């Protein structure tokens, strides 16, 4: 319980820090959004229009503390402002239409990749020196060495353009009706397949090799030999005694991988024109869409923190030494 409160406290503190940084950093940049808008129209706006824009964007020259509290209140109440590039669409609307796609596709693929890689890692470590142990790490490492965007381009060209097996862009077809129906779901899967394969191949090797190496270390531990001697069945020996301990470092890697999902995979979403958050982030940056960029950075930071919090909790469940603190050897 103390561990839990401790972690919650840390989560809240770092959330506050992330939001404050997000407030401070843009204010250290020269200019303001209205001037940026102005620059976009290359001086064809009158000073009156500039003042109007400043009003509209809520820019004031009020004391910084007042601005800060206004900002915090708006952030917490979900008033994240309007996007420039999709003016006057709300930032929250853009986020809510792009975030689920990224989370859905990349999140699910990452989890599959972790589960699959970990399981394969366990098995090849158990049969160490076997045929699978010789082939699988090398093959997957080779696939991982291929840059994701390049593989994506190759797949789009051959499987999409030449063969026409898979759609080349977007997350679902134009002709299907959005909703809970088979066609829609099928269309999503069909569109998601190629990006999924690229992300899967890009990550799975790390999970396999990481788990294999952790397992090797754990299998040499005295408590595993002791458990084998005392007659524990083979499956229990592998999974309950060895793998569970070997899993702990994997969990840390998982936290890092999941955090990078939100911001990461920009190139892959770009190649497949998949309207996830990475795709939106690229277009926001190239359009100098400050409110959107700011919101995205905040979401990325918050997601990373929340995922870390979840992993901390899981860690506590899996390793009693962490939960109760004070570990001795």
């Amino acid at each position: 319980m103390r561990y839990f409160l401790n972690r919650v406290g840390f989560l809240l503190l770092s959330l506050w820090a992330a939001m404050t940084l997000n407030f401070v950093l843009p204010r250290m940049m020269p200019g303001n959004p209205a001037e940026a808008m102005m620059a976009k129209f290359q001086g064809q706006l009158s000073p009156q229009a500039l003042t109007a824009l400043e009003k509209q964007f809520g820019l004031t020259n009020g004391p910084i503390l007042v601005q800060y509290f206004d900002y915090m209140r708006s952030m917490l109440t979900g008033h994240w402002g309007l996007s420039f590039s999709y003016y006057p669409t709300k930032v929250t609307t853009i986020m809510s239409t792009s975030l689920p796609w990224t989370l859905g596709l990349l999140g699910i693929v990452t989890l599959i990749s972790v589960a699959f890689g970990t399981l394969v890692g366990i098995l090849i470590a158990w049969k160490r020196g076997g045929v699978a142990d010789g082939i699988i790490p090398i093959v997957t490492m080779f696939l991982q060495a291929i840059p994701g965007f390049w593989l994506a381009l190759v797949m789009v060209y051959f499987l999409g353009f030449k063969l026409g097996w898979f759609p080349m862009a977007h997350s679902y077809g134009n002709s299907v009706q959005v909703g809970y129906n088979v066609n829609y779901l099928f269309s999503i899967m069909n569109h998601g397949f190629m990006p999924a394969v690229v992300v899967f191949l890009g990550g799975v090797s790390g999970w396999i090799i990481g788990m294999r190496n952790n397992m090797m270390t754990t299998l040499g531990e005295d408590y595993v030999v002791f458990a084998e001697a005392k007659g524990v069945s083979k499956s229990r020996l592998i999974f309950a005694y060895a793998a569970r301990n070997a899993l702990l470092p994997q969990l840390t890697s998982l936290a890092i991988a999941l955090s990078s999902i939100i911001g990461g995979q920009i190139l892959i979403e770009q190649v497949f024109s998949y309207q996830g958050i990475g795709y939106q982030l690229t277009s926001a940056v190239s359009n100098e869409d400050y409110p959107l960029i700011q919101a995205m950075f905040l979401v990325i930071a918050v997601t990373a923190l929340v995922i870390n919090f979840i992993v901390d909790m899981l860690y506590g469940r899996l390793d009693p030494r962490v939960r109760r603190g004070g570990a001795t050897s």
Partner: protein
Amino acid sequence: MVTDPNNPVLQIEDLSVAYVTNDGFVNAVNDINLTLYPGEIVGLVGESGSGKSTMANAIMRLLKGDAIVTKGRVKILGRDVYEMSEKQLRQFRWSKMSMVFQSAMSALNPVMTVETQILDTLTSHDKSMTKAQALERAKELMNLVRIDTKHLKSYPHELSGGMRQRVVIAIAIALNPSFVIMDEPTTALDVVVQRSILNEIRRIQEKVGFAILFVSHDFSLVAELASRVAIMYAGRVVEMTPSNTLSLMASEKHHPYTIGLLEAIPELTADEVIITGIPGNPPNLRTLPSGCAFHPRCPFAEEICTKERPVAVTVGPSDIECHLYSGKGMKQHV
């Protein structure tokens, strides 16, 4: 437990174990013969690298990696351990023979409660055992090693070193084995805890009556606990002797290595403390000296010792492999 005192629990016949290396075999254990009778405590002493632990693992058929049994047999209660199938072995091991590991401190899984680890032992061998029965037995075992049963819910890191060691002993005797190997069970503990664990082992052994092969490099400790002591040097048992002969005061004859070990024990009660070590270093197993492996360090060494390996001869109550007693040397000590 019904075991005929004449039927040995452990019979080791000509056991040899080698490590396979790039340069060929390196023999770690050579032609060991050893017999243990029910309820007996036998000590096995030797320097680091003399093959004690390798032998212990060989008896348990737990040799890992590159170690292989090249010769000989290990019989527990008349059954050859190396002729069992994997499945038979899994059932046999721990129910008839068990082992307290050298590194007992790390023999417990850090992420499982003591209870789970004891119950695993019980239910792996007896599928018909209910959870309640197993728990009952676990409590019994905790009482036997004198740990409060509330610690069944504890994780290993919450226990002291001595308590962890007791838990390991509880797991070792969980299935009432006839024979337990204790491979340096007190090495990682401080002297006071060592003493209490030792008393505990003796008390439980008297109560339950299993035989113990007590492996250690602590000569005085073994001499105190065991009834017979096997002294190992460079993978061979060079002397097998009753433990009451192991004193400089005793008149029995010993192997020169044993004498060296005895002289190296500090006497707390003596006015003047003179400790004599054995000159030289333990031999490299890859390049064992010819003849008797001890001859380069032996104060009695003569020509024959460099040429011919002595065979065991009975000298008084002991069996000794040395040319002093073989009748082949010039210096006759018989």
